Structures are given as structure tokens and as C-alpha cells.
């Protein structure tokens, strides 16, 4: 067998591992040993964003790289034998050729509109290797930055038009300018990696796949504002991201990118990693700082703003992971390069987490201003099972539901806000006709009520009361007066709450009421849940004529509510039935009726 130089890359982010990348990895190492190629490197890379096709395995050979999709452990040996050893790709298992460019698979619909800036290295480098990061231009931007006065860096970030990617969209350059002007010899720069929004995982993906990108952005930011100490506050639910960060900080310290006199200059920056403990509200900057100080993560009124008196009452600046990951490319390629992407008010690219009832799920980094339709249909491939799109939920518990009629809305900060959603962290959940919008609104309200810290009354009591009203409507006990009450209460909570959690908690309700009022009315007036979700308003029965007695439903019923003899019609005991719909989903003869 001729000697070939190659390596195997495996998508081993949390999502890849959940899909079975660990077993694929083990199979690859076994196969290499069996085939007499034990020296071939097997590298775990970060997430390249295509969740739907995980686990992904890449064969890199003679400078070319091919990606295999949904790889099963028993296919690995064949792939390695034919492709790595034999030079012949196993075409039927291929996703495509992966090119080292801002768009790694230009011919795939999922990637065609993408332009990866913040996620530029995810999937391309070994995230545990600093030299891999350096080989792709890593820490070059820091060298450039340190050669200029700090003021120039602030101006460059201002000119780039970059806005905070954590949700609020405050211009990053202006934030840095305020922090830089704040007097004091000791300042903090904090990275908010407390990605608590259910349905968003871009920050996790960057931290796992390219931790140095965030660290480099932080060191540059610290130089620009004059901070000498920093924290990364990362949620405890991300153990792999924490491990990567811990290692990366140590590597950067040893190489002189962190610590005293960075790269021989007068700039010093000491970086600590702080592990969160599971509180959504800690994504709010003043709550996050309270948590670093070892207290309950409760927000406080502003002013004073963090730039004046933040962590430990010293001037502080907080940026989100994705924001910081975009800094080095801006410094390296120039503000104009970044500002050329996007729209007038929203520059650059944004990573969206596309999930829910959509054919292709994953992370997509696209230029701002792209339409929701392009994201859902071109990238996401539309809705599965020939169903109709009902709504797109953007921005998680702080965002809103946009109906199909607004699909051509461009995704930029202003357009989304105008329609009652927000950019948020970029979670985009697609729902079809099987999702009840009232129940969906209740889901988000339950989340906010649970996560409300309880400090201010409007949020603590308001979210609970709104949840009660929504529950009442879902249970079929609502009145039309409840809708007015809900709307009034939502308006009050929005304007009187202390922090962003309470101020945005009513958004899912208000946007649902605005665009899907008829569904609320159907629950109240007709005692009917059009999507067939709200359990009090539905029941299941078996139509005896259609039932063949195949017992599939009885076997799948988790509570043994279905009885009957083999090959004879079965019945559901409504007293025992928990209305989970398992029978409805498995019946091949449409004999289970939901009414």
C-alpha cells in the first residue's frame, strides 16, 4: 500500500458528541490501527454548523478535504480503507468537498448564502491547539493593534459598525469609547458567555471550536479601553466550552498573549474564567457582575453604568462572545471590509441557530439584511412533511413570533424590533401548524416566570400573573376579558421592569396576540385548540372500523390506557389517557382520532 499523507477530522462539539461522534472517533482509531496506519492523526474539531448531518467525519488527503455525513461507526472502516488508504472517496456517504474559505461548501444550499466571520475557524482548527489558531492568522490582529494607539482601535471598531451580538445591539465601538474615557488605573473587560437563551447555541459553538478567537478579541478590547483584568463568565451547562477556555487561557499565558507586558509592550491583561451556576438572568450585565462578586445574580438599576462603576465598583465593559470573536478580523481586514457587509444600520454578519420544524437545522452565519425566507427556505430547506410554516420565533424568551406573511422581512436590528421581535442572541425556531401559538406563548412565559430573579415587582408578579392567564386560556377556561387583561399587563411589565428580562418577557405574548389573535379566540370562544396541542381541549379515541388490532398503539402507550385483543378493535380509556399523542403518531391506519 502506497504511503499517503492524510488525516481524519471529526466534528466533536457538544452537538456532534450528542449525535454519536465519540463512537465514530473510536471506530476511526480502531480502523487506522487495523489498516496499519496508526500514525495518521485523528483530530476533533469544533462544530461546522450543520447539526442535521452530524456526526461528521472528514478525510483530508493531499490538501483536499472531503466531508462524510451521518457517519455510523460501522461505516468508518470502509471510508478510511477506500478513501484515506485507497484515494477513492466513498461517494454515496459524502456530504461534499470542504474548502478552506468563508463558505466551506459553496455548492450546498445550507452554506450557499453563508459568510463565516465569527465562526471562521470552527471546524477547521484543532481547538486545543494554539499553533493551529496562529497558523490561520491568529493573534496577528493583536500584534497590529498593539502597534497603534488605543484610540485608533476604538475608532476602527466604531467605523466597522459592529453592534453587540448578545441581544441589545448597542454599538460596540461606542461602548468601548465610554469605557476608555472612564478614569481609573484599574478596569475590567468581561466576556458574557452565559448563553441562557433556549434555542441558541452559537456562543457555545465558538467557545468549543475556536476559544482563542474570543481571547484575542478580549486582549485587543482590553488594550483599547485600558483594562488590566478580565473575566469570561461561562455557563456551567457548557462543560466542554469551559474545558477549552481553561486550556486556551493557559496556552495564551505561556505564549505571552496574556499576563504582564503582552508581547513586550506595556499592556498587561490578566484573564480569569468564572463558571456560572444556572440562572438565565445572569446574562444581564449587572446581574452577571453580581454573580462574579459571589452574590445572587440580581440586576440593579442603571446608572451608574458598568463603564462608570461596574464589577467591584470599578469601570467595566461587557461584551458578548460573538461580538468579541468578530474583533480580530475587523482589526486585520479593516473596518471598511466589515462595514461593507450588512445593511445601513446593521453591519457585518450574524450567526443564527436554526432549529424547530425545519428540514436542515444548524448554525448559519449570514450577512445582516438577508430575509427570513432565505434563512428558512434556502438554508433550512423549508418545512418537513409537506406542512405549512406558521411562524418563526426569533430572539427566544425575549423575542417574538413572526407570521408567514413577514417572511420577506430583512434580519436587521431595526426591522425585527419594528415587528415585535428582537435580534436577541440569534435563536431562530421555525414552527408549523402542529404548534399552538397560545401554548408557545405560555412556554416562554413559564420560562421567564421561572427565571425571574424576584427583585422587582412588575417582573416577579407580572410574569406569574401572565402565566396564570395563559394557562387558563390553554385549559379552556379563558374569557375574552382575559385577552385585554393580558395585553394591559404585558404593556405594564414591559415599561416598568428593572432589567431586560422583565422588559422583554412580554414580547412573545404581545407578538402572538398581534399576529395570531385568532388562535387565542378559538381557545376562548370555541373551546378548541386548532393545533391539537392543549390537552384539556383535545381527546383521543380509536375508530373501530379502521382499527386492525395491530397493537402498535397499545405497545407505545406509556400509561397502558389502550386495551383490546389482537386483531380486534382497541379502545382508549379516557380516565387513564395522558393525551401524549403517542398512539396518534404511531398508528399506520389513521384509526386514532384526535378531536
Amino acid at each position, binding site marked *: 500500500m502506497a504511503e499517503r499523507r492524510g488525516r481524519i477530522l471529526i466534528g466533536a462539539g457538544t452537538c456532534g458528541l450528542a449525535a454519536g461522534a465519540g463512537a465514530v472517533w473510536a471506530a476511526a482509531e480502531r480502523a487506522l490501527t487495523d489498516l496499519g496506519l496508526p500514525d495518521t492523526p485523528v483530530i476533533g474539531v469544533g462544530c461546522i454548523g450543520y*447539526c442535521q448531518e452530524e456526526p461528521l467525519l472528514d478525510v483530508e488527503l493531499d490538501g483536499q478535504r472531503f466531508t462524510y455525513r451521518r457517519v455510523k461507526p460501522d461505516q468508518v472502516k470502509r471510508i478510511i480503507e477506500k478513501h484515506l488508504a485507497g484515494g477513492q472517496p466513498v461517494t454515496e456517504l459524502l456530504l461534499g468537498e470542504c474548502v478552506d474559505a468563508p463558505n466551506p461548501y459553496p455548492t450546498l444550499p445550507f452554506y450557499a448564502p453563508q459568510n463565516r466571520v465569527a465562526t471562521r475557524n470552527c471546524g477547521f482548527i484543532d481547538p486545543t491547539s494554539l499553533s493551529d489558531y496562529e497558523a490561520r492568522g491568529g493573534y496577528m490582529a493583536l500584534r497590529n493593534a498593539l502597534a497603534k494607539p488605543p484610540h485608533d482601535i476604538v475608532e476602527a471598531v466604531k467605523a466597522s459598525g459592529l453592534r453587540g451580538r448578545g441581544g441589545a445591539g448597542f454599538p460596540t465601538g461606542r461602548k468601548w469609547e465610554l469605557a476608555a474615557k472612564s478614569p481609573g488605573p484599574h478596569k475590567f473587560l468581561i466576556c458574557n458567555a452565559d448563553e441562557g437563551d433556549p434555542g441558541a447555541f452559537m456562543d457555545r459553538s465558538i467557545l468549543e471550536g475556536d476559544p482563542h478567537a474570543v481571547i484575542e478579541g478580549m486582549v485587543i478590547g482590553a488594550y483599547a479601553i485600558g483594562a488590566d483584568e478580565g473575566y469570561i463568565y461561562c455557563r456551567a451547562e457548557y462543560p466542554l466550552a469551559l474545558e477549552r477556555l481553561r486550556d486556551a487561557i493557559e496556552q495564551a499565558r505561556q505564549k505571552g498573549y496574556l499576563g504582564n507586558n503582552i508581547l513586550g509592550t506595556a499592556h498587561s491583561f490578566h484573564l480569569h474564567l468564572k463558571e*456560572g451556576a444556572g440562572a438565565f438572568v445572569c446574562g444581564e450585565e449587572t446581574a452577571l457582575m453580581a454573580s462574579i462578586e*459571589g452574590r445572587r445574580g440580581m440586576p440593579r438599576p442603571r446608572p451608574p453604568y458598568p463603564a462608570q462603576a461596574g464589577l467591584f465598583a470599578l469601570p467595566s465593559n461587557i461584551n458578548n462572545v460573538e461580538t468579541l470573536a468578530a474583533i480580530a478580523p475587523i482589526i486585520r481586514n479593516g473596518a471598511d471590509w466589515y462595514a461593507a457587509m450588512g445593511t445601513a444600520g446593521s453591519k457585518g454578519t450574524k450567526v443564527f441557530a436554526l432549529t424547530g420544524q425545519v428540514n436542515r437545522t444548524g448554525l448559519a452565519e449570514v450577512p445582516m439584511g438577508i430575509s427570513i425566507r432565505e434563512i428558512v427556505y434556502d438554508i433550512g430547506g423549508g418545512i418537513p412533511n409537506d406542512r405549512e410554516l406558521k411562524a418563526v420565533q426569533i430572539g427566544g424568551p425575549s423575542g417574538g413570533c413572526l407570521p408567514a406573511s413577514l417572511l420577506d422581512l430583512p434580519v436587521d436590528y431595526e426591522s425585527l424590533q419594528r415587528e415585535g421581535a428582537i435580534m436577541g442572541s440569534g435563536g431562530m425556531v421555525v414552527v408549523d401548524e402542529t404548534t399552538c401559538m397560545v401554548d408557545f406563548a405560555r412556554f416562554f412565559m413559564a420560562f421567564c416566570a421561572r427565571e425571574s430573579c424576584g427583585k422587582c415587582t412588575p417582573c416577579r408578579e407580572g410574569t406569574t400573573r401572565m402565566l396564570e392567564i395563559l394557562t387558563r386560556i390553554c385549559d379552556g377556561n379563558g374569557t375574552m376579558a382575559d385577552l385585554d387583561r393580558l395585553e394591559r399587563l404585558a404593556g405594564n411589565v414591559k415599561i416598568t421592569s428593572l432589567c431586560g428580562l422583565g422588559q422583554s418577557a412580554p414580547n412573545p405574548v404581545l407578538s402572538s396576540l398581534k399576529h395570531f389573535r385568532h388562535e387565542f379566540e378559538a381557545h376562548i370562544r370555541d373551546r378548541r385548540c386548532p393545533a391539537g396541542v392543549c390537552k384539556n381541549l383535545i381527546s383521543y379515541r380509536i375508530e373501530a372500523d379502521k382499527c386492525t388490532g395491530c397493537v402498535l398503539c397499545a405497545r407505545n402507550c406509556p400509561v397502558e390506557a389502550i386495551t383490546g385483543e389482537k386483531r380486534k378493535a382497541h379502545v382508549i380509556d379516557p380516565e387513564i389517557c395522558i393525551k401524549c399523542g403517542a398512539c396518534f403518531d404511531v398508528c399506520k391506519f389513521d384509526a386514532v382520532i384526535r378531536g
Partner: protein
Amino acid sequence: MSVLMRKRTGPIGAPDSCCADLVPVKVAQLNDFLTQHAGKSAMVIPALQHAQALFGYVPPEAMQMIAEALRTPYARVYGVATFYAQFRLQPAGRRTVRVCMGTACHVRGAGSVLSAWSEALGVKPGGTTADGEITLEQVSCLGACGLAPTVMVDSTTHGRLTPGKVKQVVSSLRKA
């Protein structure tokens, strides 16, 4: 909770007789950690995390040790421990089932999946089976949205669940 009522006595930082029920080696390990950070109230959360990693939950005795070593009122330590979802004040079962209740899982039927788990194990979310074997929890997002709805049994993630599949997973758990 009796420890809340008890008057604190004894030297600061020293584990007293209250720790009799805890494994002495682990108490000593917690004490080592606390000695390194003595007097630093900002270390309350890392200290609680350390205690939970050692004992599997945060026993009142550990909170008392933390309060004393970090020179922080017990009430504040207790306040922090009850504020954050990560901390358990009761021992967990031998195995943990975490049902993802994130948005993507929700729209793909996580509610029914959770009810099915609850029914099959005979416990409410947050509870532990009577035999102390399995704890059922709900979590906000496991980050495996592409495989929704998902559940994590100890460290293994199961994806694309249905209430029927839950039944199968439970019976394999009971056998294991």
C-alpha cells in the same frame, strides 16, 4: 432545616461535629479548598460548586463551612445556593435523567416526553424515585437542538424521542 436554627459556635473555618454524616476525606478536601480562599466572599459560588462536586449535593454542613471560611453570613450562602438552579440541597439518585425543555424540543413534543418520563418513573420533575435510583430533572437546553426532542441519561444523550421510545429507555434503565 435544623442547621438554620442552630447557633454557630467554634473556630471559624474548622469543620465541627456537624459533619459526622459526611465522608471525612471529602470534608477535608472541601476544607483545603476553603483554606486557599479564606475570607474571599467572591468565592461563594466556586465553593458551593466544589462542595457539590464532592458530595453530589450541597449539605447544610458544607454551607456552614463555606460561610465560616469565607467570612460570609450563612444566610447569604444559603441565599446563593437556593438562587442558582445548579445547586441541589438534597442528595440525587444514582442516575439522573435530564429532559431538555428548550424551545426546539418544545415544538417537537418535549412536553409529552416529560409527562411520559414522569408517568413511567412515578415521580414529578425534580423528584427522585422511592428506591433512590433515578432522579428526573428538566433542563433549559442541552444544546443538541438538531436531535430534538432530547434527553440526557447520565452522560448519554438520546435524541428524536417519542413517549413510546421513553418506555423502551426506561425498561433498559431498570434492567441496567
